[in-house]
């Protein structure tokens, strides 16, 4: 009899398509006979915890990398006398070793499950893994053999069990519970094992040895797929893989136009956390770090140590590539409580960017100190926003020089400026900037006197307007004459539709959101600067 197809939808945890025999993982149900002696039960528990830690240490040594760190976390928790003492206390009150451990770990785990943060909640499965391993040792249960190439269906899958499975022959995982933030989901992503989590309670009558498919990208588990479903899933997975591969390939290539002109592609960073998922090899450096992320917390303004730690993290990520740190660009549409001035009749023409920093040297000085210290760790360049006249750059440079002396730093970082005020673009050559970066959003707004967020005039705010392009070309020429680099870091840099126009102003450096890199590199490759536009 043909079993009908059944589909279950959960959350995507690791992309990819797996097809194989369904294998339902059951909780161990072997019963242990207690010794009846409190002393013997205590000894049994001590031995089991030590044995579990030994097994995990050996598994960690055999796997290495991030997986080893996850297992070593369990080892550290097992070796902490705290949990063991709680369980021994229960043994002392007459509970057998396994029940004492179970009760101790259950209580500990429920504390994690009540966390507000998904990341902490997800650690509950690491503790469940520890609970199960110690119980298995106590019960003399060596665990069922998990076949490779199968679709494993379980309530949850402990990371240590995931690691004992040979995934080389394919296979996937479908979990009733779990979280995309769990360690086992991270392992699955790292090893390319498709995984779906959060499917909810699955029926107990799923036929053993049925054919199952896991589509990790869409979070779907299919039991006994029809030929139509199978073909559709395969096609979707294949198309997804090809698209991804093509985009990734172009992201990793150095950018060159069709005529062979090299273009420097930099990334804009608004929060250092976003760097965790990005390979620095996709770019030639960081063209803009928006330091505002440090000032958006509810608490007091960030001190020098907090700022230094954040900048240091970005500089380490860049691994020797240049990093442009922009000093605070508050004001305008970016108010910060306790810092920016409220009630200005036109905040975009008011105390924003460098104007605010020079008005609040106490805060500006802390930021420059943290940046100068971070510059000891790599190629850091400091950039000032909203500069309109040379006196602003000169005042900032005087303060920077003083701070470098006061810190006894080895070198003075390059000090550059944003070009976003038309006055600065028209007279770029008058500034002693070590580099220029064109902020095309504000440059378009101030040149055309039209804000992007006022619908009635938004169409006028166009970075490709000839007046804006003329100002860009003028700035590029001024930079070339002075022998300093000019880049562009506004949204226009990440718009593949504008790449051609921007490169024709003789710009050779673009800084954009990391997500735009692959597409813009493809657009650059299509530009032929020998041909007329």
């Amino acid at each position, binding site marked *: 009899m043909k079993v009908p197809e059944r589909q279950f939808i959960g959350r995507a945890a690791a992309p990819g398509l797996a097809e194989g025999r369904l294998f339902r993982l059951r909780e161990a149900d072997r019963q242990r006979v207690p010794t009846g002696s409190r002393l013997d039960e205590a000894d049994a528990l001590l031995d089991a915890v030590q044995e579990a830690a030994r097994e995990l240490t050996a598994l960690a040594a055999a796997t290495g990398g991030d997986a080893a760190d996850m297992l070593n976390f369990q080892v*550290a928790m097992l070796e*902490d006398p705290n949990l063991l003492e709680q369980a021994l206390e229960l043994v002392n009150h007459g509970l057998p070793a396994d029940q004492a451990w179970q009760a101790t770990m259950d209580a500990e785990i429920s504390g994690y499950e009540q966390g507000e943060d998904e990341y*902490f909640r997800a*650690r509950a499965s690491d503790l469940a893994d520890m609970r199960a391993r110690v119980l298995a040792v106590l019960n003399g249960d060596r665990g069922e053999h998990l076949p490779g190439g199968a679709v494993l269906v379980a309530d949850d899958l402990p990371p240590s069990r995931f690691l004992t499975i040979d995934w080389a022959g394919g296979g996937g995982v479908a979990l009733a519970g779990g979280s995309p933030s769990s360690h086992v989901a991270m392992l699955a992503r790292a090893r390319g094992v498709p995984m779906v989590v959060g499917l909810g309670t699955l029926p107990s009558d799923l036929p053993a040895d049925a054919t199952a498919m896991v589509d990790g990208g869409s979070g779907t588990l299919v039991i006994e797929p029809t030929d139509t479903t199978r073909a559709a899933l395969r096609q979707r997975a294949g198309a997804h893989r090809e698209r991804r591969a093509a985009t990734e390939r172009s992201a990793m290539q150095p950018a060159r136009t069709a005529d062979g002109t090299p273009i420097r592609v930099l990334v804009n960073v608004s929060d250092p956390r976003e760097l965790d998922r990005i390979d620095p090899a996709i770019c030639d450096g960081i063209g803009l770090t928006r330091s505002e992320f440090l000032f958006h917390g509810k608490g007091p303004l960030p001190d020098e140590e907090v700022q230094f730690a954040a900048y240091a993290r970005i500089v380490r990520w860049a691994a020797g590539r240049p990093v442009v740190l922009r000093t605070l660009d508050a004001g305008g549409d970016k108010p910060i409580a306790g810092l920016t001035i409220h009630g200005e009749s036109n905040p975009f023409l008011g105390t924003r960017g460098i104007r605010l920093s020079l008005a609040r040297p106490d805060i500006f000085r802390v930021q420059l100190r943290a940046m100068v210290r971070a510059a000891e760790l790599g190629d850091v360049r400091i950039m000032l926003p909203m500069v309109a006249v040379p006196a602003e750059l000169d005042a900032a440079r005087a303060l920077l020089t003083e701070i470098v002396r006061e810190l006894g730093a080895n070198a003075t970082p390059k000090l550059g400026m944003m070009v976003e005020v038309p006055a600065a673009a028209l007279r770029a050559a008058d500034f002693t900037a070590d580099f220029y970066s064109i902020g095309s959003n504000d440059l378009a707004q101030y040149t055309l006197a039209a804000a992007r967020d006022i619908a009635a005039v938004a169409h006028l705010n166009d970075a490709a307007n000839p007046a804006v392009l003329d100002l860009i070309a003028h700035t590029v020429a001024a930079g070339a004459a002075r022998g300093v680099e000019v880049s562009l870091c506004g949204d226009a840099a990440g718009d593949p539709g504008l790449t051609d126009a921007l490169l024709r102003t003789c710009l050779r450096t673009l800084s954009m959101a990391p997500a735009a890199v692959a597409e813009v590199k493809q657009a650059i490759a299509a530009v032929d600067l020998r041909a007329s536009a």
Partner: protein
Amino acid sequence: MNDAGPPATRTGSIVVPNAAGLHARPAVKLTQTAKGFSSRIEFALAPDGPWIDAKSPVKVMRAKAAKGVTLHFRATGADADAALSAMLELAASGFGEE
């Protein structure tokens, strides 16, 4: 030591910079670093406690210190100075997380 005075207590605070907070791997780093000192080392999420033993991974995890919370450290003992600066430095580096 001829100095018969009470052991020194040193305190300092820092904001947890890394994205996921004081989670599994950072908690292990923190306790390993703390165990390298003879001083009693504790931390708290408020300047007046409750104080948590920085050498116990179980207790460190229970604190559920998320990104952005301020960690207050307190070290008491012969090597309190070195212990405190090591803890603050480790926290400033995002607990060595990239």
